[in-house]
């Protein structure tokens, strides 16, 4: 698990320019189009064991390179959000979306 964390961090360090403009998926407004550049679950308070949220996000297709479009927002508090990930659509809460690092798509 800790090995995963370090390889992940290394990946982010390797792309310093992307890291600078990176935003969190949780901040996305409707219609925004982004690309996933990494997953960093350290800030997310979770009942899951460390590394588990990252694996679940990847299994649902939120992996580096995936293109994401924010589609719908829940009520109240604009939460959860429904996003399009490549060819499918998933729903998640902003709390967990915070773990996903994205950059605006050109």
């Amino acid at each position, binding site marked *: 698990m800790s090995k995963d964390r370090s390889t992940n961090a290394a990946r982010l360090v390797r792309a310093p320019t992307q890291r600078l403009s990176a935003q969190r998926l949780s901040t996305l407004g409707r219609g925004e189009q982004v690309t996933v550049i990494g997953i960093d679950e350290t800030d997310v308070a979770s009942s*899951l064991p460390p590394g588990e949220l990252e694996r679940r996000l990847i299994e649902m297709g939120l*992996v580096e390179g995936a293109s994401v479009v924010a589609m719908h927002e829940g009520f109240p508090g604009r939460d959860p959000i429904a996003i399009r990930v490549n060819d499918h659509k998933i729903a998640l809460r902003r709390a967990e979306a915070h773990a996903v690092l994205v950059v605006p798509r050109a």
Partner: protein
Amino acid sequence: MTFAGFAEPPRLVLVGNPNCGKTALFNALTGSRQKVANYPGVTVERKEGQFVSPLGHRVRLIDLPGTYSLRARSPDEEVTRDVVLGRFVHEARPDVIVCVADATNLRLNLRLVLELRKLGQPMILALNMMDMADKQGRSIDAAALSAELGMPVVPTVAIRRDGVAGLLEQIDRTMAVVGAVAGNGGRPAPCGWSEPTSHDLRGYHQNVEAILAVAMRNAGRPSEVTHRIDHVLLHPALGLAILLSLLFLVFQAVFAWAEAPKNLIDAGLGALKDLIVMGMAEGPLKSLITDGVIAGVGSVVIFLPQILILFFFIQVLEDSGYMARAAFLLDRLMGGVGLHGRAFIPLLSSFACAVPGIMASRTIESRADRLATIMIAPLMTCSARLPVYALLIAAFVPDRMVAGGWISLPGLVMFILYAAGISSALIVAFVLKRTVFKGERPPLLMELPAYRWPRPRDVVLGLFERARTFLVRAGTIIFAIGVVLWFLASFPVAPDGATGPAINYSLAGIFGHWLAPILAPIGFGWQITIALIPAMAAREVLVAALGTVYALSETGDALQTSLSGVLATNWSLPTALSLLAWVVFAPQCVSTLSVVKRETNSWFWPAVMFTYLTILAYAGAFVTYRLSLFLLGS
């Protein structure tokens, strides 16, 4: 006829992501030759069917719960993992894995295929929903995909008559190879699967991209229909309004549409009873059949039309893909009381019956969330309460239209009863999550599948299964209860020259009179108290019990009128309302308590459930009775 190299029909399993059309494929392959059982030790449903391959071989097919990964985050997914890994004691490793992938969403689906490939089992990949993929202009090179994956790939359209022909032929070819290997003393490849790390998962995804680069000739344009529908159905205000109107519509339909078939069943049962009354000699046996068996089972079977209509709506909403939207819309609201959005599906199933609802809670990964959902599941108005509600509403609520002729008053009362159950469930959940089950909310990560027209065949098969389960229950538990009740209500027989009704002297009468002082403050007479005793077995038995109690204690004209007529003349309105309130909460269901015991693996939780529901029921009935006495000025 079996395959060469096989002593028995080979066992195939269907594995795939949720929403890949796996169940439709299972139905297309096996038709109605399906049987549902439970896996030993766990309560996950095991769906098995049979079919004959084009070369005339018999094949057994098992439909496994949908999963995104073999890492198994819920009991449902554990079954899928344990079956494909051959970890179940009485369930050998399957001979062939048929992996089902949604051709319109290959990127996500192929990841599971790669993970399954590690198992080293013979595999076939069914590219399902090829018709949809074609419509979207996707062009998948099945031969290239097959070469990349190292397994046969067959396009299928589960919903078309000839859509599985290619898969059937491929099963014959694969079985011939597997049989030949087994016949030559070959052994299955060793299992190379281990729980993937996030690094492994990324590797799978990169692998998928590489495969798609070769096999995907044209990515096409994804359909916009689902997004356009979602703009309306997932709209924060409009979407919720539509969800609520939909629920209201379902309850109205449950009442309006069921009338004709109900009358038909009623007439049939009446004719059967008349036949027996005429054809049999007087005596205990005749009384047992007419007053015990027919009255008991009949009064439940008569509600089958209503229950089927409710099941029909649940099935259609599930098959169309709307259920996940409902969970999305309700996540924040349910989160307010500490429930998982996914708890919506178990809770909705609990409207049919708490037993499948509690079982469905297995899709919730966190134990605390699961327990909270299980504890409030019996507060959802299950179909077993419908007979009780329907009886009392028919007896006490005038059948007229209100609100300018738009809403029927009985339907409105029914809606209020459902709402009472739901709101008390939310309050209980809120209290539980702040006291017993404290902690972070587990994440919501849920696919919103593309909308699909529900297929009549799949809806009918689903409906058939639910109806069968219900009738089996009515025919066994309720039959037994009916007989026991009849015995309790008939023996010992009244002494010669007795003045009161015979049941007064029976065991049930004695128990009822014992308990009557405890239930008197909430307006229950001894007849209700007696009926509540056998109704412990299942809530719907209350109707049968009341039927028996009144059929045996009344004579002459009262027997001729329907039970609701009897109740309307015997009970006051506050008593009826009090009983309705009691039934909203009542823990009267041994099946529910036993399934809670099984699911939580302890007697503690069912004991807690029974205690808290009894307290709620008594308190609710007390308040209702006193309040309505006060308001009605009696």
